[in-house]
């Protein structure tokens, strides 16, 4: 019956299955499985994996979703349960988790319901992008992983970092307008409007979202981009591929923006920029530096 599953993930899962066999016998019975030593976590959401690693409790993770890109070893070492919104009930259960820690958007809902019915505790983690949200997330995950003290330490450090960020932010006198471009296909831009995660990180970085006029991630017209008058264009770096300033500013809509004059294009890693985990103050600071510290050349910041 295993003929078809020859990929790395399932080999891994089988290995972890064998390893976890002794534990599983206990873990399977609800109630007993809550013992900290037996905690087996499936992390559905990149930020959850990131925080668990930051807390040094990666040993508890038995599976991660495909958005768990940081740290890179997470995807390498842990079984892959697929895209966070397309989980498989049996796939998750095959890892014998005691708890599924999932962001609010994880799903599909029917699958999560089935997993819960199978006796796996499902813990939802909020996707709040505020400073309070980030800190609270660390505390919640710390509690789930049984490392409250460590989490408190990390949360405090992040809080301090945010405070420092606030100082730096307050020092900014002339705020710049940043336009986050999610995708640029056939010259058609989808930008991050009000309420989007990009909007939040731009605010953290002490800049103004040039696309405030739209809600969420929306396609905008060329004239919309011109009237948004961004000083800086912000894009995500996908893998090792980043958009080149020459390409972007060759487009008519972008060539007419203030950003074009200084070829001000900033590309940053997606999860680093929009993950809203412990690295967020740092990411915001990087963005701030890129936006305000530009010397005419484009800044490419890596985590």
């Amino acid at each position: 019956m295993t003929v078809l599953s020859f990929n790395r993930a399932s080999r891994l899962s089988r290995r972890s299955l064998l390893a976890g066999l002794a534990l599983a016998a206990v873990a399977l019975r609800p109630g007993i499985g809550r013992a900290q030593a037996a905690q087996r976590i499936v992390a559905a959401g990149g930020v959850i994996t990131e925080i668990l690693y930051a807390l040094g409790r990666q040993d508890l993770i038995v599976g991660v979703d495909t958005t768990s890109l940081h740290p890179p070893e997470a995807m390498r070492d842990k079984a892959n349960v697929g895209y966070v919104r397309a989980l498989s009930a049996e796939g998750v259960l095959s890892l014998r988790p005691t708890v599924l820690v999932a962001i609010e958007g994880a799903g599909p809902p029917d699958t999560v319901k089935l997993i819960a019915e199978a006796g796996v505790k499902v813990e939802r983690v909020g996707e709040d992008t505020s400073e309070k949200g980030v800190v609270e997330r660390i505390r919640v995950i710390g509690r789930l992983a049984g490392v409250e003290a460590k989490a408190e330490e990390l949360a405090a450090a992040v809080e301090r970092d945010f405070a420092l960020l606030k100082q730096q932010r307050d020092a900014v006198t002339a705020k710049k307008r940043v336009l986050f471009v999610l995708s640029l296909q056939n010259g058609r831009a989808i930008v991050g409007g009000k309420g989007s995660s990009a909007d939040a990180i731009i605010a953290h970085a002490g800049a103004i979202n040039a696309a405030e006029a739209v809600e969420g991630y929306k396609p905008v017209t060329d004239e919309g981009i011109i009237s948004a008058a961004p000083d800086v264009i912000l894009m995500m770096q996908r893998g090792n591929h980043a958009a080149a300033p020459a390409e972007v500013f060759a487009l008519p809509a972008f060539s007419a923006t203030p950003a074009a004059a200084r070829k001000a294009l900033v590309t940053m890693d997606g999860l680093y920029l929009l993950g809203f985990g412990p690295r967020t103050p740092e990411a915001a600071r990087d963005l701030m530096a890129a936006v305000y510290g530009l010397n005419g050349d484009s800044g490419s910041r890596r985590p």
Partner: protein
Amino acid sequence: MTMIAEAATVSTLFASQRRKLAVAGVLFALLMAALAVISLGSGAVKIAPARVLEVLRGWVAGDPEIMASREALVIVSIRMPRLLLGAMIGAALAVSGALMQGLFRNPLADPGLVGVSSGAALAAAFTIVLGDRIFGTVSAQLPFILLPFGAFFGGLASTLILYAIATRHGRTSVAVMLLAGVALGAFAGSLTGLLSFISDDRQLRDLTFWALGSLSGASWTKVMVIAPLVLPVLLAVPMLARGLNALLMGEAEAFHLGIPVQRLKSAAIVMVAVAVGASVAAAGVIGFVGIVVPHLLRLMFGPDHRMLLPFSALLGATLLTGADLLARTMVAPAELPIGILTAAIGAPFFLWLLLRRDRSLDA
């Protein structure tokens, strides 16, 4: 009694065809049974075949100790409803395809043509995007409870609208229905587009996920909701076989042969709307089953609907069960959207069939 030579030839011809169909029927049934057994026995959770049998025996006998085991949970609560749902939906889609192709006398017709898909998609988008705004404060999960109902009634409603447009003086024009289906599909598509424009990030991703189709999240509840809709259709559909055969010669000819043509058309359209609406509601949009299965059967055994309809049900169930088996084991513990698999298997296979047929026609 004198037996004329032609009658003897006819007897031999029909008898050999019957034998061929009987053999094929048995083979298809065995294939389906084998796939069902393999499906129950495989998945991300490894369970030894002996244990699978033990669990099944325990399930039948109602042994509480076995039923409390994790293996029982996986087999009985996850794999079994998924197998049943997949088989039912595969059968429903394939049979609906065969019905539509017979009704429209066009081998490329599919259930999407009568507006089921576009209507269901619009209703689904409506529940995802606006359900949140209307019921958002009550429960974030509510749109997902409403979604299947929305999709089902959306599909049914758009089909009935099309039917009403195409029917004048008690006669349904199949050509008008086809054209109106294209227009209504475009209209529903624009509304769906509008809804996806005003949707937020999360809703948009829910929309995309739903449009891809998946059997994940199959549960006994879903089986219980879908079965009363799909099974009666599957059981009733062979009764249309003679009528559809006659209809292939034309509506006037079918009428001359004694077929109540208008009633036949109404019955076929309603059956498709119900079966496809229920399938779409339970598993999203799964393409290609409705075209590939009847087409393959026609190439193997000819266009007789008395064979085509029941065999489509059987082979459709087999195909979707097989595709789902691949979907949930290939990248386990993750899974592939099944729509990707049916299209990836179906499309090249379909092209190959077309190439092969063309060559035989040229010869």
